[in-house]
Every structure is written in structure tokens, then in C-alpha cells.
């Protein structure tokens, strides 16, 4: 962050000012809602990209999202715990489950890991649907909105600021990792598995760090999601949701660990709305977008912008 040039700093300040005053700039409540969803999703995508850095291709991000959402919703509705305790507890519970799952699956080869993650996301939905104590197929409803004292985060603008704060916190957690020695080890594993292993990097340990951290932040995001909508059902967290996460990551740019996911999520959420494409055509648009991106723009949107800038010099 400190070694940036002035134009880049100004750009960053501009982006932060825009995001900070967004509810005042955009008065359309529906667009603010889109930005809230994009913010929640970008936390998940940041975790996904971090797992991609160590070459763990996971397709059950929505499962951890659902774990966070369900644990927060159950703590809030069954035990009447305040939201401000539910949020960290949801993250800790999800991180703990990620730790147990990781001990079982992280050691397996990448292809087995990928397949198991697909299977896990189906199991999660099926198991939740069959346990009536956790709401069954009807899910959980009437989850309270967060509140400080008598102030309830009811308006879209106030919830937007809550989401922005959490996204920034989660991004800073990962920035901290990337700056430290752990991040260097992650990059080494991503660039050459065999070389990293031969210089004595404990691959299992670093993969577990990514897996648990991503589980923790995804759980936090899930908790906020549950309290935003007020009701959750198991089908929301199935494979159909999980497959969109890598699409966001590819469109933003896989080499950009923080900005890529944020930009990708905003694009995927906002562009179909701005172009007024009907609901039916949105998955087709996304599918076409990912094929075009991976065939022709492998560095994603940010990579294309960066290349344009160097060419114009």
C-alpha cells in the first residue's frame, strides 16, 4: 500500500470516496441493494481467489456461506443472541467446520478435492432439508435485523455501510496475509508446487491456513446475508449458487487478489440490471461472459484495463 504511485493513490481514494458516499450518489434503492449483494459476494470471492492461490479448486463456497447464515440465524432465533455476538460466532463456527473438513480433504489430490467439494455442497442442502429441527425445506424465517441500542439497521443505506465495513475488514485480513511471509509461501505454492515442496514449505499447513481463513470470512458474510434477507432456505446454498463464485473471480481477474473479486462481483451483479436484461437471460449472459473472458481476456477486466494503460503511455 505504501509503495504506490500518486495516480494510483488518487484512483484508490476516488474509489473509496465513491463507495463511501454511494447511497448519496445513487438514490435508486434497488441499485443500492445490488451493491449490498455484490459486497457480500465479493467477500466469498476473495476467499475463493485465496484458495485458488494455493491451487485448491473449491466448489462449495456457498456451503460455507450457508453454514454461516444458518448458524447465525439459529443463534439469533432460537437462543435470542444479539446480532453483534452472532456475527463473530458464525465466523468461528464456520471456520471450525472448515478446520475439520480440511483435515479430511485438503491432503487429497486436487481433482478429488474438487469432486468432494461438489458432493459436499449437495450433501449440505439435502441434510439441511431433512433435519426438521433446523427448519427443514421451509428454512428459517423472521431473522431480526441488526441494531445498536434503539437504532435498527433497517434502511438500505445503513445496511450498505455495514456491508462495506465488513468487506473492508475481510479484505484487510487477506491483505495482511498477502503482505506477510504466509502470503509469500502461498504464491510460491501457486507458482510451482514441486519447487515449493522441495525448498521445505509445508504445503499442507499453508493450505489449511487458507482454507480455515476463507471459511471464517465466508461465514461472516453468510451471517450478514441471513440478517439482511430475514429468511433463508437450504436451496439458496446449493451448487447452483456455488458455480457463480468462480465466474466472478475469472471476470475480475484471477491475478488480482482483492480488486479482482470486488470488480468481478459488481460487474456480474450490476451489468444485467443496467442493461435491463430479463431475469431469464442473466445466466446465459454470465456463461457467455466467462467463456469469452477465459478464451480471450485471461487476466480479466482489471488485467485488460492495466494493459490499455501501459499501451497508451
Amino acid at each position, binding site marked *: 500500500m505504501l509503495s504506490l504511485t500518486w495516480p494510483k493513490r488518487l484512483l484508490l481514494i476516488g474509489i473509496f470516496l465513491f463507495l463511501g458516499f454511494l447511497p448519496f450518489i445513487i438514490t435508486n434503492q434497488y441499485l443500492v441493494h445490488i451493491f449490498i449483494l455484490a459486497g457480500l459476494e465479493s467477500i466469498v470471492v476473495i476467499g475463493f481467489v485465496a484458495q485458488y492461490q494455493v491451487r485448491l479448486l473449491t466448489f462449495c463456497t456457498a456451503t460455507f456461506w450457508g453454514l454461516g447464515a444458518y448458524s447465525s440465524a439459529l443463534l439469533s432465533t432460537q437462543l435470542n443472541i444479539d446480532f453483534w455476538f452472532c456475527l463473530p460466532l458464525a465466523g468461528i463456527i464456520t471456520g471450525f467446520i472448515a478446520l475439520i473438513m480440511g483435515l479430511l480433504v485438503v491432503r487429497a489430490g486436487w481433482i478429488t478435492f474438487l469432486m468432494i467439494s461438489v*458432493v459436499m455442497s449437495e450433501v449440505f442442502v439435502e441434510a439441511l432439508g431433512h433435519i426438521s429441527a433446523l427448519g427443514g425445506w421451509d428454512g428459517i424465517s423472521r431473522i431480526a435485523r441488526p441494531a445498536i441500542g434503539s437504532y435498527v439497521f433497517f434502511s438500505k443505506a445503513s445496511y450498505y455501510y455495514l456491508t462495506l465495513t465488513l468487506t473492508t475488514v475481510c479484505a484487510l485480513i487477506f491483505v495482511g496475509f498477502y503482505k506477510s511471509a504466509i502470503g509469500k509461501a502461498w504464491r510460491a505454492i501457486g507458482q510451482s508446487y514441486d519447487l515449493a515442496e522441495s525448498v521445505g514449505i509445508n504445503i499442507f499447513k499453508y493450505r489449511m491456513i487458507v482454507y480455515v481463513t476463507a471459511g471464517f470470512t465466508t461465514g461472516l458474510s453468510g451471517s450478514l446475508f441471513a440478517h439482511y434477507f430475514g429468511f433463508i432456505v437450504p436451496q439458496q446454498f446449493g451448487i447452483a449458487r456455488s458455480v457463480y463464485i468462480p465466474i466472478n473471480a475469472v471476470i475480475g481477474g484471477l491475478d488480482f487478489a482483492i480488486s479482482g473479486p470486488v470488480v468481478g462481483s459488481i460487474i456480474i451483479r450490476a451489468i444485467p440490471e443496467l442493461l435491463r436484461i430479463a431475469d431469464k437471460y442473466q445466466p446465459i449472459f454470465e456463461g457467455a461472459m466467462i467463456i469469452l473472458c477465459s478464451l480471450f481476456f485471461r487476466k480479466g477486466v482489471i488485467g485488460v484495463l492495466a494493459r490499455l494503460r501501459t499501451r497508451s503511455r
Partner: protein
Amino acid sequence: MGLEVFFQLILNGLVLGSNYVLVASGFTLVYGTAKVFNFAHGHFYMLGAFVYGGLIFLGVPWILSLIIAGFTLGLFGLITWHAIFKPLYFDVFLTVACTIGLGLIMVNGLIVVIGEKDIIVPSIFKGSFTLGTTTISLEKLSIVLISLGVMLALHRFLNSKIGKALEATTVDQEAASLQGINTGRIFVLAIIIGSALAGIAGAIMVTYLTAQPNMGFPITTMFLCIVVVAGHGSLKGAVIIGLLFGLVRSFVFHYLGTWDYVIIMVLVAVIMYIRPWGIWGFEFRRRI
């Protein structure tokens, strides 16, 4: 439990299992030989069902429809290979992401064209006959027998000279190309056969189920489970585990209701813990 119920359950299990065998062996052939992960394989199955259903409605004889469905999907696999797998061969993640996108386009394109409804395709084989005390429906028997025929044809093909070359490429790609096998062509052959198997499986099963754009998703989970347990690239394992899972689902569904999926997943988790590479599998060298 009467003996009659027992035989019916076995027949149902064989119907499900033979279908799983076809899809899973197509996937494992593509993955084992060309080492590309086709996430849209389940949607190829769905497309095969629709091609077959459309031809039946046009009045084409069933055996011709079945062959045309297989050929169409083989062509589709060939196009997919040249459009997606070949240019992105160096990057595993991008192929997976691209095939996800392909699946989204296929499913939602069909939903836009025909709408999200179930289409009932009439069965060609109607009626039933009685064997001892059990009544056997001709439709179920025909599904099992046609699947058996397709698998026998595949077995015959794999024992030919080209089939041996395919097997050699599966085991060791470099050694195979040193022996003068054109591995690039073998990859194309594998993806054509694998996609055609998915299409034929969908075409056989569509009279038993109904044709709908979302029918690729449940089968995707199922064949991934089978391939994980059997080991990647093992056709023998896919046949045995596919039939076993069909029987398990049939029996569990009868006695415990809709817990069948969960039971199978628990089974998968146990086997994964004991043998992470699958029962008949071995570790591939390709890393990402």
C-alpha cells in the same frame, strides 16, 4: 417383505445403476484419457434426452433416434474440444470454469426456448410379462438390456487396436506417444465417445423419467460420486460402483424414504477416508 418386492427393487436398482454406469464411464473415459474435467457432462446427458425425445415426436424409429442422439452428442463433444478444451489445455481451472459457463448457457438457453416444464416422452416398449410371481415391465427391462448392449459394444471397441492405444494413453501419455501413438487424436476420440455415451444414456432414460432442462444437475452429483469412489480413469470401477449405487439408492429409497442421497454421500466419505484415490484409481502425475 415379499420376494416380489425384493425382485422389483433389484430391477429398479439395475435400471438406475445401468444409467449411472453409462454416464460415469463416459466421464471417466474423457477424464482418464485426455485429463480434462468436463463439468458440462451432465448437461450433455440432458441434451441427449432432448434430441431423442424430439426425434421420437417426429416419428423416427427408436433405434435410429438413439444412434442419431449418440452421433449428435459426439459432434457436440468434438466442437467443445476444439472450442474450449484445446485452447485452454494448459489451465485446468479455466477449463472447469468454461464448462460451467457452457452448462449455464445450455440449461438456460433451453429454458428460454421451451420453458421450464416436464416433457413426457412416450415409451416404445409397453406392457409387461410375468415371471414366476414377479411382474416385469418391458420398459425397465429394455433400459437395462440396451445399456448392456452399449457397454458390450464399448468393451469390444476397447479391445481393438485403437482401444488398446486409448488405454495406453490413459496409463502413460508420454510412453504412449513414444510408441508412435498420436495422442492428440486419441484425446479427440475419447471425448467423442465419452460425450456420445452421455447422450445415449440420456436418450435411454428419458422414457423412464421426463425430459426437463434441469435434469443434468442430479446426475452430475451422482457420476462424480461414482468416479470418486471408483478412481479416476477406471472403467471397471465405474461399472461396478455404478451398479452398486443404483441398487443402494433403490433399496434405501424403499426402506428409509428420501434419505438415499445422504446415505450414499456418507458411503462416499467413508471410502474417501480409507482410500483417497478411489478403489481402482492411481495418482495422476498432472499437477496444476
